[in-house]
């Protein structure tokens, strides 16, 4: 193996694979390092993959990517202890020739993605943990790995090593994560026969359903639960802010168990066989938590740069985009014969600002704090909504006008008029 490359990419997840693929296709010599046994073996996601950004990298990905089901129906549920109030959007329009969203299984998807990267000419080396960055003064000149004689040099290092971003932290390029800027999610893979999934979720072959659930299932913590249909399994998980887990001393696996036993969820999982239990952190601090993502000889992409739109569930999507833009920046500088210093690489940040990535993160920049300070959105409101639905739909001899009054009174009692108006304004401002 040569000891010098044009570029080294740390981590073969969506960000690292996107970066390495883009570089290799442009003829840049690139080394992709992965600490797992194979790409994906350390990675966890729900997982929904959006086609658009993947298509920009691999136009014919549908030919051989390990895709589970394309999404035809989105369910958003608010749960109290015994009920759920929800909206469903289902459309045959999602059965299009080039579907927009797919469920995937990350361990399989990342492995496939990395094969494409190798085919494009990048060198992939697995089972190799990068322990620190090699520096010449302040300039990053390569990486140190846990292999004997494991120093490797490059003009630029793209850090795509995931949410913990240990490599950058060790080298003083990034601070430690804050407990209220990061969520801990736990997840299980529930296997069921394909036909059972299709019957249970009212879907055809290849069609899939997404359920996102919020409410008392998180026991007062800020977070959500989910069920995604794969071909012959269901991804079932729940995640909340680490600060909330710490304050409430909640056991994540107990929370998951309780979610699974909710009367609206339990029948969907009945008879399934669990084959894996996983846990992972998700950066949820949004715009204000994005660290410095470029410097002399280095760039940062994906979860390491905290590029996650938690409201729209875009983590791997932003990872692929930031990985690609990081690579494009390197390619352009190389073509122009410019050195990979911080001044030139700042172009990366500028391009991110011009893309949907920073535009979307900026739009929701206040949302994490607003939700954090206003737990009523996951405690009081689900109960009020379920109570209102119960009052409205139950036929019990009470006249409808009285029922209306009863519902209005329950909201006024639960949140007060001032509280209700304030909540509406707070939420509107945070997402405007």
């Amino acid at each position, binding site marked *: 193996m040569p000891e010098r490359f044009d570029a080294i990419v740390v981590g073969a997840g969506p960000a690292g694979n996107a970066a390495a693929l883009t570089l290799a296709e442009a003829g840049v010599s690139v080394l992709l390092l992965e*600490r*797992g*046994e194979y790409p*994906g*073996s*350390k*990675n*966890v*996601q729900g*997982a929904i993959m959006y086609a658009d950004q993947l298509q920009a990298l691999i136009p014919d990905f549908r030919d051989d990517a390990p895709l589970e089901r394309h999404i035809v129906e989105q369910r958003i549920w608010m749960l109290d*202890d015994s009920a759920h109030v929800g909206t469903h959007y289902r459309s045959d329009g999602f059965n299009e020739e080039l579907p927009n969203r797919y469920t995937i*299984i*990350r*361990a*399989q998807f*990342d492995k496939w993605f990395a094969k494409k990267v190798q085919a494009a000419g990048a060198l992939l080396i*697995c*089972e*190799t*943990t990068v*322990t620190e960055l090699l520096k010449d003064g302040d300039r990053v000149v390569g990486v140190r*790995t*846990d*292999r004997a004689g494991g120093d490797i040099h490059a003009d630029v290092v793209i850090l795509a090593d995931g*949410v*913990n971003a*240990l490599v950058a932290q060790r080298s003083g390029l990034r601070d*430690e*994560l*804050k*407990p209220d800027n*990061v969520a*801990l999610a*736990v997840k*299980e*893979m529930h296997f069921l026969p394909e036909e059972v999934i299709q019957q249970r979720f009212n879907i055809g072959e290849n069609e899939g359903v997404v359920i996102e659930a919020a409410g008392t299932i998180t*026991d007062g913590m800020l977070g959500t639960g989910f069920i995604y249909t794969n071909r012959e*399994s269901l991804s079932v998980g729940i995640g909340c802010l*680490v600060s909330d*887990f*710490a304050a409430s*001393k*909640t*056991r*994540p*696996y*107990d929370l998951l*168990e*309780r979610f699974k*036993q909710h009367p609206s969820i339990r029948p969907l999982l009945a008879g399934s066989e*669990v*084959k*894996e*239990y*996983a*846990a*992972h*952190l998700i950066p949820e601090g949004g715009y204000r938590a994005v660290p410095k993502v470029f410097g002399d000889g280095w760039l940062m992409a994906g979860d390491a740069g905290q590029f996650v739109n938690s409201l729209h569930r875009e983590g791997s999507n932003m990872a692929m985009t930031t990985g690609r833009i990081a690579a494009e920046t390197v390619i352009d500088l190389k073509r122009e014969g410019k050195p990979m210093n911080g001044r030139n690489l700042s172009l990366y940040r500028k391009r991110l600002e011009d893309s949907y990535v920073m535009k979307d993160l900026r739009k929701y920049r206040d949302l994490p704090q607003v939700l954090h300070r206003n737990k009523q959105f996951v405690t009081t409101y689900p109960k009020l909504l379920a109570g209102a639905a119960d009052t409205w739909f139950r036929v019990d001899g009470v006249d409808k006008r009285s029922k209306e009054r009863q519902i209005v009174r329950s909201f006024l009692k639960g949140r007060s008029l001032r509280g209700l108006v304030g909540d509406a304004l707070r939420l509107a401002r945070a997402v405007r």
Partner: protein
Amino acid sequence: MMINSVKVEEKLFQNRYVVDEGRPHISISEPLKASPALRTLVDICPAGCWSVQPDGQLSGTLDGCFECGTCRIVAKAVGQEIQWAYPRGGYGILYKFG
């Protein structure tokens, strides 16, 4: 209302790990008296790795660790250090599905 605690060991049993025997990737160099803040790790670690010993010290059994980082972040937030690194390449949790 919270249901009775499930046994996390039974969940971890499903997973695939390659344990790097004798080389734990997380360690505590100075014995850490389990302050109330650190005591939360016993509950919130998703793999149930942490326990408090009779002498009040925090102790970790890392065979089921997900390498998620929760313990490092929570400790750091209260001004305490857990020496936290990823396992050597190829070791640790290896997700079949992820």
